[in-house]
């Protein structure tokens, strides 16, 4: 064996270009770092995360304390006076609402709720959707057929509609009232979005299954569980990460829409509670006083847009970095 190879020109370390070997993730990270839009998006996402975590220390005021009529309808910093005729007060940078509550503090606390509303359901959906998708894609057969028919049905139901239906019908049950409505919200979001991810993961498993390294593992006698966890899963992580980057803003918007309709999380009136307000509630509150305090709605809409755009840039960058073939 050794003799046979000596006569052949071999690629020795000295003839290879002097680059250290790089893992798939190192390569992806390098590609991502070169993408300026994605980097800016990523940094902004981190800033929002920090704002959500430290909302209670960052907020200049108690978000539910009303400072009374004298401090109501104060304008935000870019307006010298509000339609209500009040002058700007530096203690309230983004102004106040009709009860004299600080808008900045309310938005910070809302960020906390909305970030949780975006991140928590993703975990659940990934667990359900990825597991079902992988197993059915890899195993095939009747289980796969059944899953595909079920996802076909869910494909035909508008997600908004189903979400609203679940929230409204179960909103007054014990489940809907528990923990500010968070469990029900998680359940509803999981119910409407697992099928899309399952479909995606199934496709990924199907594509990978026919590749030669999986075949090699099969012929070496690897078990199904081994192949799924060691070969299929790691190679689908890229697709999954991109899906998550796009799913989080979708879920945040879903919360905002439900909150605006008045079906979302139930804000607590206890300042020590975690959920005091959410972006959805803030949209509802701000829209109701648009005539006398348009700056409030503008602040909320801007804060939400920046996060959603950041996630999109980050998601686009991740897609290009993790799978250059998908690049548009």
């Amino acid at each position, binding site marked *: 064996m050794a003799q046979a190879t000596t006569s052949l020109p071999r690629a020795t370390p000295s003839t290879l270009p002097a680059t250290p070997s790089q893992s798939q993730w190192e390569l992806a990270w390098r590609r991502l770092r070169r993408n300026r839009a994605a980097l800016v998006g990523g940094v902004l996402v981190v800033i929002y995360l920090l704002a959500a975590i430290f909302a209670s220390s960052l907020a200049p005021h108690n978000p539910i304390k009303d400072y009374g009529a004298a401090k109501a309808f104060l304008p935000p910093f870019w307006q010298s006076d509000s339609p209500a005729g009040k002058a700007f007060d530096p203690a309230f940078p983004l102004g106040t609402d009709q009860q004299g509550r600080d808008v900045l503090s309310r938005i910070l606390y809302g960020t906390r709720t909305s970030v949780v509303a975006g991140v928590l359901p993703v975990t659940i959906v990934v667990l359900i959707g990825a597991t079902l998708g992988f197993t059915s894609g890899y195993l095939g057969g009747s289980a796969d057929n059944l899953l595909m028919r079920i996802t*076909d049905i869910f494909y035909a*139901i*508008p997600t908004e509609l189903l979400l*609203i*239906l*679940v929230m409204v*019908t179960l909103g007054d049950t014990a489940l809907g009232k528990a923990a500010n409505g968070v469990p029900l919200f998680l359940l509803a979001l999981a119910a409407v979005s697992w099928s899309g991810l399952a479909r995606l993961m199934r496709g990924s498993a199907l594509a990978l299954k026919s590749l030669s390294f999986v075949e090699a593992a099969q012929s070496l006698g690897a078990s199904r569980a081994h192949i799924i966890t060691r070969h299929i899963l790691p190679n689908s992580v890229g697709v999954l990460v991109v899906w998550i980057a796009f799913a989080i803003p979708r879920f945040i918007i879903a919360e905002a829409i439900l909150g605006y309709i008045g*079906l979302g999380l139930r804000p607590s009136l206890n300042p020590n509670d975690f959920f005091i307000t959410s972006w959805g509630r803030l949209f509802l509150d701000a829209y109701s006083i648009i005539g006398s305090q348009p700056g409030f*709605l503008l602040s909320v809409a801007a804060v939400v847009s920046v996060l959603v755009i950041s996630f999109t840039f980050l998601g686009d960058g991740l897609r290009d970095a993790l799978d250059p073939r998908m690049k548009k």
Partner: protein
Amino acid sequence: MATFLARRFLWFIPVLLVVALITFVLMKAAPGGPWDRDPEAKQVDPRTQELLARQYGLDKPAWRQFIGYLIGDVDKEGQFVCGAVCGNLGPSYRQRGKTVQQILFQPPPEKSFFDSKFGHTLRLAVLALAFALVVGIPAGVFSALRQNSWIDYALTLITNIGIAVPSFVVAFFSILIFAVGLKLMPVVQKSWAGITPFIIPAIVFGFGTMAQTARLMRSTMLDVMRQDYVRTARAKGLLEQAVIWKHMLRNALIPVITTLGPAVAGLLTGSIVIENIFGVPGVGRDFIQSIGNRDYSMIMGTTLFYVVLILLGNLSVDILYGVVDPRIRVE
């Protein structure tokens, strides 16, 4: 083609059945009946509730209500009344004396169909689609023809933002700009006659579709521009205009056309939130109101109607595929 259509229409049955079942189970799981009021308000007395329940057939067992709703049931006089399969979506629980289909499709007296609830939704969706295509397609083509120019970058930035920011948020910005800032329209429109009041809601609603169309158009144009038949057309000495219009555009439009089906379905059923923000008196706003009123037959009827729209939208894509591109034929 006939067997394909027959198979697809047969597939509608299980889908609608499952959707109806999910909706029915959810509504039965909801605490409180359609006759309950706010806990603070005076309640409907139990005797009346019983009478109402009997009148609407709510005293029957759940399975019979479900089948009765979908297929039909025998009424008090022993006559068979056909259910949802005949387009009878049942009597509304809250708007007495009206059926759900009347509420959705019947215009006010002496008005045209376009003034019905669905007519308003339709007007919004058609205008939004028109905006998406009339702006999106030229923007995409222009972007591709001037690839990597500043105008391409500007258009790409706008489409990226249009895809990222949902119409829910764009709607609030547009109200701030057009109603509060420029005072071009009232925050809440008073009359929804004609086209004018729909323009801004439709632009907002169609913005995402416009961005997606522009992005798709740009990428397929870039793809088509590098095809051999385009090079051949140029080599023949055809005018650049002819190459663009006859050779590139026609082929680049195929993917865009096939996205129309889901786009139309999405625009028809996705207006729940937009209608609520702008106060458009359409199906979506009614849906939210009937939810607040616990008008279960309205909720069920609207849901089924929406699902039928989506199924038809998806089906139309598959048919369109074969029509616009003979290379793809349904089996």
